[in-house]
């Protein structure tokens, strides 16, 4: 195990931001810390970086306790949500910063800077001022800057949240490829489950300072540990398993669990209709209960039949 967190608690006065968290990240693994804002995930990340001090518990790297190691000796890269590029340095100057701290010779430094800029798709940007870059470009530079000194661990704090949606989705795919190619050990903090599932080998769900569930994305997605986690992962309706023909206690339904289909087993009345990007979302009343569903064009007031899609169903527990 490369990174190990052993029952870490972080307090600010009376407030407990992180409570008894244990987690490990293997060499070359990408783990996402996923949770709603204010759940303590950023604090945990900053504790690992050495920017916060845990009230109890320990951060270890290859079994060595890091308590006495200051931020600048940990060799952990950190990427902020909004880049935090040095405004008085050029793109190349930003990327080269960590290498200069390591006293890397000028020649190999320049070479490394160019190869990193190529890696993040910014060839020819070396001499630009960082203030002239777009948000997406700034984030790429921030990433190159953090990767340049070859950190043992890369920490990403909501790396894509400040970008608009189209760019975010594109960059998430790029970032996933980049982390795999560089075989980087990384911990990504995010509140966006799409982002977490795109990037991570394993996902850790955080809620109110605790880690409530850890597992591969598919497993976490299909079997959230409790109702709260299921709600956070997009389930909006909770019914007995028998409702969808499963022999489990309770299941959560996402909007995609019910699809308009003339051959479906359920029947209801359309109450509302909203156009989304690539589908139409409906609010359907079945036996006096309201359910979300997706479907082709229908009118409010229509009677429709609905098919159950198990991909949209999450087993609780």
């Amino acid at each position: 195990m490369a990174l190990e967190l052993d029952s870490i608690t972080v307090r600010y006065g009376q407030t407990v931001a992180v409570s008894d968290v244990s987690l490990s990240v293997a060499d070359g693994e990408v783990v996402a810390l996923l949770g709603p804002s204010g759940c303590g995930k950023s604090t945990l990340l900053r504790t690992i970086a050495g920017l916060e001090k845990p009230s109890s518990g320990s951060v270890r790297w290859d079994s060595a306790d890091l308590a006495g190691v200051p931020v600048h000796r940990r060799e952990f890269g950190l990427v902020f949500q909004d880049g935090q590029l040095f405004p008085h340095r050029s793109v190349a100057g930003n990327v080269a910063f960590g290498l200069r701290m390591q006293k890397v010779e000028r020649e190999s430094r320049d070479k490394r800077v160019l190869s990193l800029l190529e890696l993040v798709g910014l060839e020819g940007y070396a001499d630009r001022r960082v203030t002239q870059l777009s948000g997406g470009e700034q984030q790429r530079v921030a990433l190159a800057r953090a990767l340049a000194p070859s950190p043992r661990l890369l920490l990403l704090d909501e790396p894509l949240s400040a970008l608009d949606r189209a760019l975010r989705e594109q960059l998430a795919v790029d970032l996933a490829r980049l982390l795999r190619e560089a075989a980087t050990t990384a911990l990504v903090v995010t509140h966006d489950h799409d982002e977490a599932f795109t990037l991570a080998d394993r996902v850790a769900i955080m809620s109110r300072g605790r880690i409530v569930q850890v597992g591969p994305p598919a497993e976490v997605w299909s079997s959230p540990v409790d109702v709260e986690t299921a709600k956070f992962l997009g389930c909006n309706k909770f019914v007995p398993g028998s409702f969808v023909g499963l022999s489990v206690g309770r299941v959560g339904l996402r909007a995609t669990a019910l699809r308009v289909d003339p051959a479906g087993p359920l029947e209801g009345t359309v109450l509302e209709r909203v156009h989304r990007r690539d589908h139409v979302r409906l609010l359907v009343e079945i036996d006096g209960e309201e359910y979300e569903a997706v479907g082709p064009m229908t009118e409010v007031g229509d009677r429709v039949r609905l098919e159950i899609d198990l991909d949209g169903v999450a087993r609780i527990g």
Partner: protein
Amino acid sequence: MAQARAGLSRTRLFGARSGWSAAALLPLAFLALFFAWPVLAIVTLGLDEGGVLKALFSAETWELVAFTLGQAFASTVVAIIAGLPVAFVLARCRIRGLGLVRAAVMVPFVLPTVVVGLAFRTFWPDGGVLPIVLANAFFNVAVVARTVGGLWAHTDRRAEDAARALGASRPRAFLSVVLPALAPAIGSAAAVVFLFCATSFGVVLVLGGSRYRTLETEIYLRTVELFDLSGAAALSLLQFAAVLAVLVLGALARRRRETALSLRDREELARRPSGGEWYVVAGAGLVVVALLAPVVGLVTRSLSTRDGWSLAGYAALATRGDRGTLAVTGFDAALNSVRTAFDATVVALVVGVFSAVVLVGLRRSGGRIAEVLDTALMLPLGVSAVTVGFGYLVTMDALPGDFRTSPLLVPLAQALVVTPLIVRMVLPVLRAVDERLRQAAATLGASPLRVWREVDLPLVGRSLVAAAGFGYVVALGEFGATSFLARPDAPTLPVVIARLMSRPGELNSQMAYAACALLMVVTVGCVLLIERLRVPSSGEF
């Protein structure tokens, strides 16, 4: 949210507030040794003599207080009225010659008080209340224009646009939206200006003669000429109380302003003036002309004698004045000025920058001690320079070495006046540096010292140079404490000017005016150099 988190982490990162509080003790110790101790020594000396109560309750004392506050109030009002249109032009207009306007406004602020006094005497040879008020305002238009303009430049124009869209006329939108938004800056500027005017020394001395006296000049008079120490102590106490009250009010206004500043928009808000705005621009133009008039008057006066144009005054700078008025030549005094101001600036930079760094650290961890230090650093601006100067003479021989005759005495006294200025200029820039930028550097392997060198220093570098430049010219022109402490064989230029003016002989006054012009050239040169650095005008002065 992110800011709050960063703040909390800073506390933890440096093992807490106690570290910063300990660091705050250093500038406080400097103030205690070179400011509080001399001032207290003088005040106790006066108290020991008795008669303080008598002085406090005499009608004459309260007339002095009334005149001091009255002229300060009037000067503040004039400075604000003149400063606002200039602030508008600097913050909101995109027109040619803006750099010139900025320099023209700045020059009076750093001119030596004696020089300004003399400049106004060329228009009002007999002095009086009006020239005193105008001269004090003349100095401080820069404070108003820069402080208010700094905030104005970052205030979102859309609030004003929204008011206009809701049916407010332009003046109405100004009164109901813009003015309240600027109120904290105006309040803060007013407090500082009031402070400067209430303790103004050189101007009142030159223009008031024996008829119009303020607390400051009266303290000087009683200490130096009447040896009435208890009277001087009583007046010092009064002045101190008034200054403290104004400082506290100013601190309150600044606190409100800092929250306002965090809302600022970096968007470029300047545009070409339109319609009625041209009247405001014209008003600002008038103010600039009025600011330049005394300067031009002074230069003209230095060149004209009863027998027509002449360079006699300038030639006399190489001499000791008419019939040996001075112990040294004018050029020697100029050289001494330059050297002393340099030493003072170095001391003030060290103390000021250190204080600013500590204040940022303290403020982030939210300590009360930050406000104490902040206010304490401003105090020297408001306490009679004469009291400080005389205090030095009384206390400094208690220090190891023969400190009283040390050539460091004058630079230290000047540094006291310059330090608050440097703090006020560097502090806002340091505060604006995002904590996470420092953290990013740390995660890339930079040690705390390296972070300061790689991040803080480059980002505040230019404003540091600008602060040093302003500090230098202010030290160059410092008169109150210097006139008290400078040895006769090593006077500074302002001291020489005052001495020349107090002696008869046309050559003496001619030489004084020439010395003024010399001082002005140096000052203007410094200001123009600083303007070329294009430091963002977010400083509080």
